[in-house]
């Protein structure tokens, strides 16, 4: 399992890093923490690079290094990296340009396999997409953007599961909401939900939304298998059935205290691009963390 955690600043990324590292810990995953800095106009990019070289000669770090240092300190304070590395401190000198327009440093991890810190510059969706493709990540964890189109672009173009950490607070979120349906791949979604529930020590609430409650199709073989898996995992769970429009019911049920774990849309990318999807509607409307499993 490989997890990519995208952070942006010390002021706003603490919940993302905290939840991201908990999830990484639950999966014992190889983890990469990435900061994508602002895109620099091509007109000035070489000159800015030259200015940054000059800044370094006056002992100033290029922008973004402070964010990685803050992430390092978080890992260090929570003993998520090797003790020797903590003793040495932030390995500024080992932050090297790998020739792929990114700077990176490897850290030996303790609770997860290892942790990489990466610095890139450019359009956030394009850079994350590139990083996911190159690194073959399974989950990308990031904070919610104020830009409405961002959720759409992330779901549409990033080829990994997406975990958007929105207003995350340790105390507040006491349940995982797991909307189940008949689509294939629900077992994978359930496995992710179980891992997260175990990591955060919270229970799962399975939600099935029927357009018409009288139809009993939902409790099929697949459905029963998922419930069985959750039961066997030892995680506390509850099942609820609702009738109505799927997205609306999920949004209503999620309220302000549930982390949503749901399956990505299986529509074709073209249909999804023009029509949108249930996960996208939920993501746009909800103020809670949401993991969309691909």
């Amino acid at each position, binding site marked *: 399992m490989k997890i990519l955690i995208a952070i942006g600043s010390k002021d706003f990324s603490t919940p993302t890093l905290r939840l991201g590292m908990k999830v990484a810990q639950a999966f014992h995953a190889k983890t990469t923490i990435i900061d994508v800095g602002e895109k620099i106009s*091509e*007109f000035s990019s070489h000159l*800015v690079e030259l*200015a940054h*070289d000059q800044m370094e000669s006056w002992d100033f770090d290029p922008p973004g290094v*402070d964010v990685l240092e803050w992430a390092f300190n978080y890992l260090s304070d929570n003993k998520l990296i090797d003790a020797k590395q903590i003793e040495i401190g932030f390995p500024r000198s080992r932050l090297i340009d790998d020739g792929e327009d990114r700077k990176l440093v490897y850290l030996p991890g303790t609770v997860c396999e290892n942790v990489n810190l990466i610095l890139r510059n450019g359009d956030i969706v394009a850079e994350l997409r590139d990083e996911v493709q190159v690194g073959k990540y399974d989950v990308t964890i990031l904070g919610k953007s104020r830009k409405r189109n961002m959720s759409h672009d992330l779901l549409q*173009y990033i080829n990994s599961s997406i975990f958007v950490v929105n207003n995350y607070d340790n105390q507040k979120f006491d349940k995982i909401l797991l909307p189940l349906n008949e689509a294939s791949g629900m077992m994978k979604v359930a496995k992710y939900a179980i891992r997260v529930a175990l990591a955060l020590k919270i229970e799962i609430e399975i939600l099935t939304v029927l357009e018409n409650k009288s139809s009993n199709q939902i409790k099929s073989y697949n459905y029963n298998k998922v419930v069985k898996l959750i039961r066997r995992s030892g995680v506390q769970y509850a099942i609820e059935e609702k009738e109505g429009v799927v997205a609306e019911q999920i949004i209503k049920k999620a309220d302000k205290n549930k982390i949503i774990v749901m399956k990505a849309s299986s529509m074709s990318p073209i249909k999804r691009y023009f029509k949108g999807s249930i996960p996208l509607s939920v993501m746009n409307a909800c103020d809670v963390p949401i993991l969309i499993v691909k």
Partner: protein
Amino acid sequence: MLGFSNISLSNFLFWATQKKWFLYALGLGVLLLSLPTPHDLQIKAKISIIILIVSLILIIKEPIPLPAVAIFILIAQIYGGVDTVDGISKSFMSDAVFFIMGSLMLAVVIIKQGWDSRIALGILKFTGNKTAGIALGFLSISAVLSSFIGEHTVAAIMLPIGMTLIRFTSANPSKVKNLSAVILFSIAYGCLIGSVGTPSGGGRNVIMINYLNQAGISISYFEWMLRVYPFIFIQIPIVSWIIMKTFKPEHRILDSSVRKLVIKVARSRAITGRNTLTVLIFILILSGWVFFSEKFGLGTIALTGVFLYLLGGFVKWSDLNKHTHWGVIILFGATISLGTSISKTGGAMWLADQLVYFLGTFMETIPFFREFVIIVVTTSMSNVLSSSATVAVLGPINLNLVPEILNIGLLTAMSSAFSYFTAVAAPACTIVYSSGMIRAKDFIKIGFRVGVISILLLIAYVNIYWPLFT
């Protein structure tokens, strides 16, 4: 769908999203091409204007790499029959392109020489320890230096000096936000103000000289300075005052931080014979620009300097190669070529006529309206494009607006330096913004004030001072 996998469809959609501005620009180009050609416009001129519009969108939005835009401009002119292959090739390479190439390379040499410590000491000796004096010092030194060696070079040299002073004042940047803005805007705006002072201050000046030469007008280095340099001295105190008033600094006196900076600089390496030689070579280049640029061209002299630095081993070719953005050089070559084509085909004259047709009455009746329009249009474009590209595309059009070609040329070059409004408008602004110590919205806050005052000052300047030359 049609045998395509979901991944390939997703890849295609991603490509289309990333390149949407390219597709819009292309669509607009095709639409304009299909519209009937006005009776007073040649088809070649129409095509060159359409290429200009498409290229402007591509340069501003950057959906494709800038070198690709350059290649598009060149091949579109040839396929569109605007000029022959030979004609386009000739207009592509000019002294202005030589100068931009030489200037970018000289920046690498100069920045690597460690002149920054000496400059820091110079500023502090000159300014004392009051914040207002230091800000004025940063702005003045940046302006004077950038008038000779280019805004981007000076911004890169001055930025760490300013940042060090800020860090010595407080290790916590959030406690000195206003002071940071004062120091860094003094550097950025100083560089912009100074960059029009002499022809060698920026690529835009040389591009304008190139167009003036094509129009049969020659202007020497010294004559340019005589006409433009006083404006720098007018702007310096006023802009410095505006910066201080806009961002009231947290500390009025920077006594201890100045002392710490002096100690730090004093500990830096001593001047070596090689450092002195690099300065001597630069003085040689500067003398060449002043005395021989009309004969040999500014670009040739800049490249001579680069040759001497390489010959003396003051810089490695690998360093020059790494830090010189060849794509930008090609793009300037292409935009100058397009500007020349628009001028040659009559497109520039047609565009100027349209402007006169719509605004001519106001230009005749309202005092200073003509200058106001030129300055506002040029300033607006340079804030979203780049000053050199603005001059490259607007130059030929503006020169067709009125009979006083030299004045209009200088006015265009000067107002193209008013890139105060955005962090991406000029390399100097992008460089200080990249420090992370100022915010994008700070540019709007201060840029509007400095921009409006500069426009008014320039209108007054050209109407009071330039008539003395006639």
